[in-house]
Structures are given as structure tokens and as C-alpha cells.
């Protein structure tokens, strides 16, 4: 899933200082699972904004809505009839949701309420870690299903570097060395001999390096 983290409330207050009718818009997908932008967090943020407005003596109306998704037009259409009541939206969806909402409602400012961080997994409640950077050409078949692009700080294709110590990365003793994990996994699969195969230069044209990307599936288009 896409993992996001809450923005400091002061930053959000700063965006909203000139607005009087605000919609706090949540998303019921990834950001709900990582507890950054679901219905619960919409409620918490809306309450905090109301308290701040009251303390400052400002008359501000703040409504709460959480959509099934903000990355699909069908769900974004659910606020079409009410959007004109608001002079600002704070979207607690990922960056995709913020942008897609803005694209549908061209004349309404839409502010981000979270920082979109990475594609990752839930290790446990309150701990999410990165697994994928969406480079567009998956090499997991050759690296024991552990991604050096996302998980090695130097994205080495032929690692580990000389900084790997006790299974940890040179940048931080709390970060696993991806190549230690790869080697452990290749060993467990009895495929350590594959370690010595040279990994060729990567074609980054399917990565962000190639510009904004799209997936086109004519077979499923209507």
C-alpha cells in the first residue's frame, strides 16, 4: 500500500488561514490502514482545526467526509453537489488523491493533509516500512524477492557495499542491510551461487527518470 504520515498541524493551519468553509476529505484505502488519513484521522484533524479557530476567535465551518477512494472519479463525484459550499479542501489522501481531487474540482484549492512517504507494508501497528519504489521493471526474481532499489540506501545491484555491519546499513544501525537480507534469503533457497552473477546496467527509462509514466491496457479499455 501507499504509506503516508501526518503533517504537523501548524503547517495545515498555515495553508488554511484565509479560508472560512473547509472540507476535510479522508480516504478509506491505504491511508486508513496506515492511520494517517482515514475517517478517524479526519475527525481528529477537523476537531483540532475547530479548536484552533475558536481559540483565535475565527468563524470557520469545518465539515468531514471520507470517500471510499480519492484516486477514482466515481467516488470523487460523491462530493460534486456539495463542493461549492467550500472555499478549501484538505485532502488526507496520498499525493495521488490530492491531485485527482484537484483535477475534478478545478476552482477549489485542495491542500495536502499528509506527507506521502512510500509503498510499504505494515510490520505491526504503528510501524510501516518501505518495500517498493515502482521502478517499472521488477528484478525481484534475481534478488531473492528482496528489492535493492527500494531497500539499499545506494540501490546497489551488485551489493553489499563495504559499510554493511552486523546485518545493518552504514547509514543507520536500525536499517537492515538489503544485501545481507538478499544473501540470507539466497542461502535459504540454496541459490547462493547466483550471487556471483553480474547484474547488468538497469534501464531506468521505466522509472521516474523516464518522465511521468502511464500503464495503457487496451484489452481492458471500454
Amino acid at each position, binding site marked *: 500500500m501507499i504509506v503516508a504520515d501526518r503533517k504537523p498541524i501548524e503547517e495545515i493551519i498555515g495553508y488554511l488561514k484565509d479560508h472560512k468553509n473547509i472540507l476535510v476529505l479522508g480516504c478509506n484505502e491505504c491511508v486508513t490502514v496506515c492511520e494517517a488519513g482515514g475517517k478517524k484521522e479526519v475527525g481528529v484533524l477537523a476537531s483540532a482545526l475547530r479548536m484552533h479557530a475558536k481559540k483565535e476567535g475565527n468563524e470557520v465551518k469545518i465539515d468531514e467526509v471520507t470517500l471510499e477512494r480519492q484516486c477514482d472519479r466515481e467516488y470523487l463525484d460523491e462530493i460534486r453537489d456539495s463542493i461549492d459550499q467550500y472555499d478549501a479542501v484538505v485532502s488526507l489522501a496520498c499525493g495521488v488523491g490530492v491531485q485527482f481531487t484537484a483535477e475534478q474540482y478545478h476552482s477549489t484549492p485542495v491542500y495536502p493533509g499528509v506527507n506521502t512517504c512510500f509503498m510499504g507494508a505494515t510490520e505491526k501497528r504503528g510501524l510501516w516500512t518501505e518495500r517498493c519504489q515502482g521502478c517499472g521493471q521488477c528484478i525481484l526474481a534475481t534478488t531473492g524477492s528482496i528489492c535493492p532499489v527500494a531497500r539499499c*540506501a*545506494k*540501490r*546497489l*545491484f*551488485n*551489493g*553489499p*557495499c*563495504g*559499510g*554493511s*555491519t*552486523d*546485518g545493518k546499513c*552504514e*547509514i543507520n544501525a536500525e536499517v537492515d*542491510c538489503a544485501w*545481507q537480507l538478499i*544473501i540470507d534469503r539466497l542461502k535459504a533457497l540454496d541459490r547462493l551461487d547466483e*550471487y*556471483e552473477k*553480474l*547484474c*547488468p*546496467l*538497469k534501464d*531506468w527509462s521505466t522509472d521516474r527518470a523516464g518522465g511521468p509514466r502511464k500503464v495503457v491496457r487496451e484489452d481492458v479499455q471500454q
Partner: protein
Amino acid sequence: MTTKTPSKLEKILSEGHLAVTSECGPPRGSNSEHIIKKGELIKDHVDAINIADNQTSMTRLCSLAACIRLKLMGLEPVLQMVTRDRNRIALQSDILGAASFEINNILCLSGDHQSFGDCAQGQNVHDIDSIQLIQAVRHMRDEGKFLGGDDLDGKPQMFVGAAANPFADPFEIRVPRLAKKIAAGVEFIQTQCVYNLDKFEEWMKGVRDRGLHEKVYILAGLTPMKSVGMAKYMQKRVPGMDVPDEIIERLKGVEKGKQADEGIKICIESIQRLKECEGVAGFHIMAIEWEEKVPEIVEAAGLYPRPTVN
């Protein structure tokens, strides 16, 4: 082994001499006097001088310019190049620029992570890794082509090196990793600083068992300790560094004013022991901001005078 490039370092190694290289860190500014001074200090005692490429990610005068300075003094530079800061366009371009000044040695590295340096908020590149950089230089030199496939007008005549750290984890792949660098085309290796000689010799045994010492020249890396503080810092703070407690105890055992001398002594003894290690083709003496000590170490270790080659 026959030579493939005009590199003086390659000639010395191919004639079977123990090579001696050293290293200069470029200045943190545009004042090139430091480089000239450091070069002058060590030029008669080493065969080639590495110029670091923004080591520990602290921004410095560029390796290429400093190498050109040394070349203009008639010295033999080793261009260190990290994949952290340059994509494949910039790497190839800098290789050609260096080759145009007849810089005939390159050391291919991935580089310390930028979080250690003065631009921790900067982006890193890592378009290719250090092993792929070895392949890239060999491709340009041997095939006479760019990575993109076009013909080069003038091939870079570079002797291709890389680093090896026998002390990083996991230890079991440290010999296979060297084999991988050899498969990529590396011709000489400069190792991480050796303090744990037993572990280094164990690694070298693994290297010999696979006959890898006959496919690459291995220069053992050495850095003299200036003080107990430095030894402790290297033991605790420098990733991938193996400083045994005995080194610290030995430095502690002498009074503060004599610790630097003791550090030099340890360094010389290490060289003398490693001279006997089959497969060690030379020494890379990295006296960090202590270049003036290199001549003394080289002489005391019996590595002076340096051989002359044509």
C-alpha cells in the same frame, strides 16, 4: 601479466614489484596549494597517488581537477570516482576528460552515503554501481565504445581498480564479491584499512584458494593511527572498519605524546607481516591528513627506493 595501458602503476605491478600507493584528500576550497604540497611530500616514495572523490560525502575540490594538478607535476594520479554523484552520462564524460590528460588509473567506488556529509539533504544518483562502473570503463577502453554503443574518438587508456573490504559483513561473500569484481574486469584492488591482520590473512587464503590473486593485483590498505582517540573512533564509528581491541590497548600502553609514534610502528609492522602474505601485490598507505609520515613509513618498511620503469 602483460600491460594493457600506459599506467606506471600497472607497469610496476606487472614487473612483480610490490607497489606503493598513497592518497590525498583534496582541499575544501579552490586553493590548490594543498594538493601540490601533499604531492611534493610523497612523490619520491610512492608509485601513484589516489585523489579521493568527495570522501565521506564532504564537498571538496573535485578529484579530476586535483588529478590534473598532480599530472602537471609529472606525478601518477589514481582518479577515484564514485557513482553516488554522477549518472552514466557524467561518469563517461569525466572518464574521457581524465583520459584526455593522460590520467591512466581509475578507482571505481560507490561512495559513502551522502548522509555522512555536508549535504545530507541532497539527492544521490546511483544510476550504476561500482561493479558496473568497472564494466563501463573496461567497455570504453577495450571496445572503444560508449555505453550507448557509439564509437569513441580516442579510448580511455585506464588501469582499472576498485576497493575491497574484507572486514565488512557478511564475511562469507567477501571473496565471492572480489570474484564478481574480477568478472566485471577489475585489474587492481586497494583494500579497506587493515588492522585485523588475522582476518585479512583469512580472507587472502580464501582469495588464493580460488586463484583470484593471480587475476588481480591486491594492495593492502593501511592507515597509521595518530592516537587512542582516533583508534576508538574508527572502531566504533566508521562503518565496515575492524579495529581489534589489541590495537587500542597497545596505543593506550604508551604515553600520550608517543601514541603517534606507536601508530606508525604498528603500521610498519603490519606492512612487514603482510609482505609475507602470498597474493599481496603492494600497499596503499592512507595517512589521513598526515601525508608527511608516508616517506618514513615507506622507508622503514623496506619499500624504498621505489623502482623505476620505462
